[in-house]
């Protein structure tokens, strides 16, 4: 039976790690801040000379915050797993009564904290500096954010499955795999701006529907539900597939004794 105390134990382990590490705090605060300032000022500059009345800055900053939520949630999961590999802690964790589900739940909650912290910092800065309130769209934004976080977790689980199967050589994927989806996600431009072959690929990428929904929401003030439903269905498919692959990789790792050796 699932034990909330053990899930809390995993969460506690990562918060203790954060408590002692200046570089981890930097990672949490520094990059979202720099991203927002850099791209915020660039869009302000581009909009100044533009004849287009479209609120370019709002679109760009909103997309940037959403993309950061995805990246932080994915990295929170995958890097959290890597922290246990680097510390050779998987052995200690999985000879304890901790179940795989409890371990994953602990990491998922921690990644949620990281994503929310980053989005909060970026939202505050965007209101203060660029007069853009990311949360002004209310519940609609919640739907989009939730779908993005689920997708981020599926990418994180896929990364973890690769790391378990191929070893630490695959750890670069913790930072790189989400970026693979970036060109097809139509984060900063509409889907129609992509060449047709890229549009075909994008139709299999859930984030393309989510970011397209976001643009409609900001420009027209309403959510295109059919986009969102397609996005959620694809996210469900990715999540089931990546979870299954992770469980399979974990079983293979137990069979081959990799959980003892990984991190050496």
């Amino acid at each position: 039976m699932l034990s909330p105390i053990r899930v809390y134990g995993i969460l506690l382990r990562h918060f203790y790690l954060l408590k002692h590490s200046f570089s981890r705090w930097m990672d949490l605060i520094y990059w979202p801040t720099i991203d927002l300032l850099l791209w915020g000022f660039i869009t302000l500059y581009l909009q100044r000379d533009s004849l287009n009345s479209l609120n370019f800055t709002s679109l760009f900053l909103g997309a940037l915050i959403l993309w950061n939520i995805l990246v932080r949630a994915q990295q929170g999961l995958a890097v959290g797993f890597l922290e246990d590999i680097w510390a050779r802690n998987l052995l200690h964790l999985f000879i304890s009564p901790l179940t795989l589900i409890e371990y994953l739940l602990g990491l998922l909650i921690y990644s949620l904290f990281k994503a929310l912290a980053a989005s909060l910092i970026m939202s505050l800065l965007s209101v203060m500096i660029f007069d853009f309130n990311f949360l002004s769209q209310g519940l609609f934004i919640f739907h989009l954010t939730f779908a993005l976080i689920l997708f981020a977790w599926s990418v994180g689980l896929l990364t973890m499955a690769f790391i378990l199967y191929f070893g630490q050589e695959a750890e670069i994927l913790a930072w790189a795999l989400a970026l693979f989806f970036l060109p097809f996600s139509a984060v900063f431009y509409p889907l129609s701006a992509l060449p047709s072959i890229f549009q075909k690929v994008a139709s299999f990428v859930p984030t393309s529907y989510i970011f397209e929904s976001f643009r409609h929401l900001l420009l027209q003030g309403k959510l295109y539900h059919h986009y969102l439903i397609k996005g959620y269905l694809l996210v469900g498919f990715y999540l089931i597939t990546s979870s299954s692959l992770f469980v399979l990789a974990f079983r293979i790792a137990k069979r081959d004794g990799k959980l003892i050796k990984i991190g050496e």
Partner: protein
Amino acid sequence: MSSLLKVENLWKAFYNRWVLRNISFEIKPSDILGIIGPNGAGKSTLLYILLGIISPTKGKISYFGRDFYTNRSAILEKVGFASHYVGLPYSLTVEENLRVFARLYRVKDIDKTIDNLLETFKLKDKRKVLTRTLSSGEMMRLNLIRATLPQPKILLLDEPTAGLDPEFIQHVRIVLKEKAEKEALSIILTSHQLGELERIINKVLLLDRGEIKGYGSLKEVFQLFKVDNLEDLYFKVFKD
């Protein structure tokens, strides 16, 4: 007396090479079993299979009369492990590490349990220091604290006295023997320090290239191989 641990016909292969063949043995309350064998005999693999972090190719393991694989979490709440080869995460303090593992084992009175164990294993003054600053002997003591944190019924120890000074080896031996006698704790341990091992174990399992060469009470095995100490037994069994 019923078995605390029963291993039946256990086999393990890595990449089509057998590393354990047809291993069967059992542990009863207060048994202290020493697993002895040369490097590569399969001692650590056997311990890791008993902890569920390596899956066996075939065979059955039951703890407290229950199948290990269908009752994993409940069983592991009463099984402790410490190894000389694997330290706890370096970036946490001694106390933080113990607090995390206390939650994973659902320890009831965390503060009191940690206090008592830090006292028992003489690590109280290191409570607030980062684990990375511990010496190898102190790290082993911390591992022993982590292993005894859930008040286990069975303790699995991989080279528990490696890295410890003679005074502390004696202390650990006394503590473990006392727990075995008073709390009916059973212990399975591997060690290359045969003299030290002989002072603590009452059962022995001789393992060579994944096969059992002898198993029973220390007295029975000594009689079987016509020796009177563990070192002679080792050389008689493994030199041939």
